[in-house]
């Protein structure tokens, strides 16, 4: 049932999460979480979802195990003339943007990055039921991040700059989630 929040492993970020001591070891991701995620969430710029430690989990783990951010974006070609020549869509393509995804370094080795990614894909698939969305785009900020997303079928569509822009079409997302149940 798409509308049941308990279908997700994560929950929306709360302002107190910012001071939970989350640290992924990557400064820009940690800084964003501490200083910008909650205000940006409040402004609707990007929704932040947080994976919290469950009561039955090891109590030495941090309270926030990981997070990701989601927003909607429209992809348009930067070169209109070339777009027309290549017969690309004349209208912008609506996509979901996974802007950031990070796991606390003290909680590594538990497949939490994978769990966060699948959770994000569930939310995107649910959103695509009511708003137009042709797939998910991620911004991989490092080679390790790019390698992580490649494992889950994202393809690099812009390889000449960092962050790498990567894409996974909605049909592939749906096929995987439908099979996963």
């Amino acid at each position, binding site marked *: *049932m*798409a*509308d*049941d*929040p308990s*279908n*997700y*492993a994560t929950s*929306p970020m709360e*302002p107190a999460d910012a001071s939970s001591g989350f640290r992924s070891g990557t400064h820009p991701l940690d800084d964003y979480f501490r200083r910008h995620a909650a205000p940006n969430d409040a402004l*609707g710029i990007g*929704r932040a979802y947080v994976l919290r430690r469950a009561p039955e989990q090891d109590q030495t783990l941090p309270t926030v195990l990981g997070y990701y951010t*989601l*927003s*909607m*974006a*429209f*992809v*348009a*070609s*930067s*070169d209109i003339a*070339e*777009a027309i020549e*290549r017969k*690309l*869509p004349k209208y*912008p*393509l*609506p*996509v979901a*943007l996974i802007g950031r995804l990070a796991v606390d370094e003290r909680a590594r080795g538990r*497949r939490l990055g*994978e*769990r966060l*990614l*699948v959770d994000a894909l569930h*939310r995107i698939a*649910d*959103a695509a039921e*009511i*708003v*137009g969305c*042709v797939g998910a785009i991620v911004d991989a900020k490092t080679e390790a991040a790019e390698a992580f997303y490649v494992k*889950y*079928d994202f*393809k690099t*569509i*812009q390889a000449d700059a960092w962050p790498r*822009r990567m*894409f996974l*079409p*909605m*049909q*592939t997302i749906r*096929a*995987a*989630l439908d*099979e*996963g149940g």
Partner: protein
Amino acid sequence: MRFEATIPDSRGAAVLQLADELGLSRSQLIDEALALFLKAVIEVRKGRRLVTIPGASTEAACEVSSPTLAALEWASRSEKLELPSAAVEKMQQMMVQPPEPGKRLRAAAKRHGR
């Protein structure tokens, strides 16, 4: 008008219990719930946020959301990504011929399924 819907058993049980507690018929309860949801959608489409405010304490306000409301909110605040034509072309190719999910993605979806 008559509606029929399939909802999880747990929610159905909660609806029946609440209708009983409040002395409402199921129709009255569903009608009021839908009116609230419609109002929530209208407010979110206007760019407003839904919060609950504690009555007499200094506790923080708590935001109310659901996957549907969150999706509407994302859609209303879209940013524009300008990509080179070659990148848009790659996206288009993948949309026209979507790759089958690989082993790893399938296994991940299964591990973290609902």
